[in-house]
């Protein structure tokens, strides 16, 4: 599903990732752990095609992300969902329109968009807020909308960067439960976090990064 071969990444000469090898199978739930600056976010960015590796190859399904032409990147992203720590919702659009957007860019019919968006908002528990603007929602609700937007297209991989950052433990727990449900439906989930609570709650494969290197992987290929 996801394979990284000897991947390195530098930012202005500073090493962000060093000779990373990682294989993630279809349907896995993987937690990327590590302190700030360990390389977790960089690894997610490389998988999502927002950054390119300086060395090595990255395969996501059959696509070599490292060699992807810029015009092909949108099509890679349509097979993935991304949950951001800062939500990145369109402020002037309603919750419904935010979640509908990935379907709209893919040219899905009006009828199917309506059904999928309503079903997904129900699944993440914010259907009653579908007409609201993001600014009117709590942090937890905004994150649920962000998750809904990431999964509404039925992606094969869901990436999340610190999805419980700045959340109280109860709210973080609820968000992690959502990811577990999504994973149980067959979506491969990769979460970058430094929150131990997430690890304790998920009890799945944990990959630990330190200064751009994988120093521990407790469940390779599980």
């Amino acid at each position, binding site marked *: 599903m996801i394979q990284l071969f000897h991947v390195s990444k530098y930012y202005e000469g500073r090493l962000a990732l060093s000779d990373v090898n990682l294989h993630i199978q279809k349907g896995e739930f993987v937690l990327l752990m590590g302190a700030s600056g360990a390389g977790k976010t960089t690894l997610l960015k490389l998988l999502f095609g927002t950054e390119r590796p300086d060395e090595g190859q990255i395969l996501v399904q059959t696509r070599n992300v490292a060699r992807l032409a810029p*015009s092909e990147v949108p099509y890679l992203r349509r097979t993935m969902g991304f949950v951001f720590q800062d939500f990145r919702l369109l402020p002037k659009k309603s919750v419904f329109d935010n979640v509908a957007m990935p379907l709209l860019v893919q040219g899905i019919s009006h009828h199917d968009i309506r059904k999928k968006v309503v079903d997904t908002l129900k699944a993440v528990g914010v259907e009653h807020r579908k007409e609201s603007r993001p600014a009117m929602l709590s942090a937890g609700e905004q994150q649920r909308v962000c998750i809904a937007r990431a999964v509404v297209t039925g992606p094969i991989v869901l990436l999340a960067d610190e999805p419980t950052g700045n959340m109280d433990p109860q709210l973080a727990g609820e968000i992690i439960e959502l990811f577990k449900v999504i994973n149980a439906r067959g979506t491969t989930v990769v979460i970058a976090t430094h929150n131990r609570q997430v690890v304790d709650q998920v009890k799945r494969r944990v990959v630990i990064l330190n200064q751009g290197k994988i120093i521990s992987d407790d469940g390779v290929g599980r």
Partner: protein
Amino acid sequence: MKRFTYLIKEAFANIRLNQTTTIVAVATTAFTMACFGVFLLLYLNLRGLTTSLQDDIKVVVYLADGVSAQALADLQARIKGDHEVAGLSYVSKEQALAEFREQFPSEGYLLQGLGENPLPASLLVTMAHPSRSSEAVRRWAERLKAMPGVAQVQYNRDWIESVGGIVRYLEWVAIAVGTILAAASVTIIGSTTRLTLYARRQEIEIMRLIGATGTFIRIPYLIEGAILGALGGALSLSLLKLGFELLKLRLGPQSHLLGSGVTFTFFPGQVSLLIVMTGLLLGSVGSLVSLLAFERSRS
């Protein structure tokens, strides 16, 4: 269909986002296009005038006194045979005198002291359509002068050539002014798009992250530029029409060009449409230039 509706809605949302800038952009584009429109209006009217004058061109071939009937018949046959000639009529000395008396009744005394009729017989030649340019007439007239029995060849060459010269000069001025003003319009609309892009840069980034292609992101901005350009073009037409009507009022109902029978006219429908379409095109180009610059700065 929903996708198309979304793209149109986004274009109008962009316009609403920067209302003041939009109004300034449309007004400035309208003004620059109106400046060009003045040249175009003048050019088209003068070109119409030269075409009309060329259509009306008559060459008078004055015959030498004492030319024999046979020589006259030969000359007429020769002229009629030329492909440059559409028609020919003979004016005898007597007819010329009668016409002079009819046209200048108070000047008849001028001819009284001369005894015999001093006016020459002539052939009035109408040129064929492809040969009505002043250059073609000049070449033909030069050739004719060398023929036996021909005393002089006259036509309103200087007049046509001077108007033709102005038209050619105006063509160059219109091209130069048009290029500068087109560049100004592109820059003005491009700046408006740049402001919109800057205001919506975070949204654009989010659209990229959710899998929107570059084309999907660009289209609303191109539509926005096209709308601004078309509005600018339409407004410039309105300004020109207003100015034109005011000028006509000032000149009176018989607003003839340079004393000719040709009246001063506004742009025909196709040219008006072309002006609006040019605005639309310039607006789209302005937006495209800004989009490419924006994408380069963020890659």
